[in-house]
């Protein structure tokens, strides 16, 4: 099948002083759209673009830029200006605009069917005057949920909040575009999509918030004081994840009489004594490799998984069989890998936009 957004023209741009997290959200949404066949035009600052500036680099280009700008037409740009003819032409032809709130004035110069704006808090009263993705995670309660209870709260690796906001932007523009281009929609139908990183973080954290609203008590980061924990094994780490029904099969995998101790008899007790439980399981895991533990878990249908690094995954048999990570070239011609968009139709994948060939 053709790609769903084939023939759709999308323009992405951010204000010159746009915070990094909002730039990442816009670029991520554009990356998804490009992988789905949209013609994505990205206006990029001639100098000082933080996405280009971030380390590490490959062939002189930041890995962030290689990943996020794959499949886009990038136009170097000095910033919004009434006299900027190139910008005006592109604004005139784009059906979808992806902008940060600081660039909202650009939206007024366009008659695009869908305009999407990302911000930290929208126009909410009482919002902090300045923020980063990190401080938004703090205010939403997400940061409090990760890490060791005795230590500082911990952010998830990479740029998870910005990218989750990028996913929200993409889903928002897809829904809006579907609505305004429907057979019943008037030709003049237009839609504005708004995403705030704070809303996204709160939405992600709904279980914690629902529990707090129902009970008044908030679950907080548990580290190794919850029965789900990351444990060492012979060649790395393994995530011990299991439910009530998995306790018997886990006992069988570890085969240690100490796990039959009454202090592990119920889920509540296992959580209360999670560190002692983890120590016993880890003692067994230290004799085994990640592959061996995964094989044992698979036999018993246990949801335990090894911790794999990006290097491990570049050589992972499952990813290779699914051609998920594909050989490509950067704009400067350096070799690199690009993950495919994680979706398939009829077992025919969306193209990885910058793929120069398959391994």
């Amino acid at each position, binding site marked *: 099948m053709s790609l769903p957004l084939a023939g759709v023209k999308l323009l992405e741009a951010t204000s010159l002083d746009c915070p990094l997290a909002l730039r990442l959200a816009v670029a991520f949404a554009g990356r998804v759209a490009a992988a789905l066949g949209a013609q994505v035009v990205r206006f990029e600052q001639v100098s000082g673009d933080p996405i280009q500036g971030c380390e590490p680099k490959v062939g002189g280009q930041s890995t962030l830029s290689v990943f996020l700008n794959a499949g886009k037409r990038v136009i170097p740009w000095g910033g919004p200006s009434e006299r900027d003819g190139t910008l005006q032409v592109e604004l005139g032809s784009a059906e979808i605009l992806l902008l940060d709130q600081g660039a909202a004035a650009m939206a007024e110069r366009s008659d695009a069917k869908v305009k999407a704006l990302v911000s930290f808090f929208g126009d909410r009263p009482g919002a902090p005057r300045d923020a980063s993705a990190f401080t938004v995670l703090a205010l939403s309660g997400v940061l409090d949920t990760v890490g060791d209870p005795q230590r500082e709260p911990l952010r998830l690796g990479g740029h998870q909040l910005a990218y989750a906001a990028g996913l929200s932007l993409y889903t928002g523009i897809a829904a809006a575009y579907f609505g305004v281009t429907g057979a019943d929609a008037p030709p003049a139908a237009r839609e504005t999509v708004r995403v705030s990183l704070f809303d996204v973080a709160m939405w992600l954290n709904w279980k914690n918030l629902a529990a707090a609203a129902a009970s008044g008590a908030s679950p907080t980061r548990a580290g190794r004081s919850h029965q789900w924990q990351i444990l060492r094994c012979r060649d790395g780490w393994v995530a011990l994840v299991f439910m009530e029904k998995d306790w018997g099969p886990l006992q069988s995998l570890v085969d240690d009489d100490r796990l039959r101790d009454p202090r592990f008899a119920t889920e509540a007790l296992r959580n209360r004594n999670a560190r002692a439980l983890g120590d016993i399981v880890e003692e067994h895991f230290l004799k085994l490799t990640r592959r061996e533990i995964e094989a044992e878990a698979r036999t018993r249908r246990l949801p335990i998984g090894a911790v794999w690094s990006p290097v491990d995954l570049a050589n992972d048999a499952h990813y290779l069989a699914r051609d998920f990570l594909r050989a490509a070239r950067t704009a400067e011609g350096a070799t690199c890998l690009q993950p495919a968009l994680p979706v398939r139709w009829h*077992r025919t994948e969306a193209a990885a936009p910058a793929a120069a060939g398959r391994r």
Partner: protein
Amino acid sequence: MTGRPLEGCRVLDLGILTAGAATSALLADLGADVIKVESKVYRDPFRQWPSGAAKEEAEKSDLPPFYRATNRNKRSLGLNLKHPEGRAVFMKLAARSDIVVENFRRGVMASLGLDFPALQRVNPAIILASLSSQGESGPDADRVSFGSTLEASGGLAWLTGYAGGDPTMSGIALNYADQVVAIFAAGMVVSTLLDRRKHGAGCHLEISQRELISFLCGESFVAPGAESRHGNAEAPWPIQDCFRTADGCWIAITVSAERRTALESLVGCIHGGITGNDATTAALRGWIGARNADAALAALDAAGIICAPVLDGAGALAQGEALQRDAVVRVPDGKLLKGFPFTLEAMAMRVDADARALGADSARIMSELGGYPADEIARLVKEGIVEFPG
């Protein structure tokens, strides 16, 4: 324009827990008619998943907080898919639907006779959205996992952790992988509807949660080799971390290169230059450790330093409803439901209805959509194939 984008679309929702049910919830928020299909032998575990002090309430009802939060705006059909006649009813409904969402273990749809070829025979335009851990193909396709497992096996846990420490995953309270997949899957379903509008044909949409987690760390795969864990540090900020106050709170701080001098003046640290992050961080830690949270936050804010208190769930909710207008929704009884991760101005999403007891809409769906006469519905109920509440 007041209609929502997916009005007129019908979804048969076989999704449970977070990943599947939240995907369908977003489609319902966008205006689709979502029919959640469960039975006494296949019930969404969230119906019996109490949270905290709500345990007693949950035991009295099949609508505990987690279930309500993510199944509002849906109708409920009680239908036993393990019975051949139940499957026949499902196929009849599928013939009049646009989308089926499922996150069963791989192979279950085929063993039930409800896989894509079977669905397509009754409805060539049907879209089947399958959310799974590993995707439909590949040597690990039959592996079982939860969202947290996939943070480990997809590369995110490798990148998360204290500097020099072990890999870390989000806990059961957040279960990050199950949240993001719902936003992505809803977007892919809508994209597929766009494609179907052009070509008319349905398709099987396959989403691997593990691959999504890797995609969300996409830059780490461009030239893999040097990735490691850096705690809360993040390029390009010279300093970013949480610091403990004298009254035992944590403050999250992001220091830009431009505000570094202001910070050093505030905390009484001699300018450390590019290589002096450790000295500045140590001075900041000491300065905050000697102050209560309110005083520290006020002084940092006055100095133009990006900062915020680290709030727990209750603290996040206590910030005032204006600030959290779209993220969470409160229903008339005061209970909290999930809100929206994005908003539409003209075709605004909204929560119209609370979650329903199992089978609360069975009669109407069987009659109006399935076209079954009352006596036939009564027989199916008597034989335990169709279920009503209670």
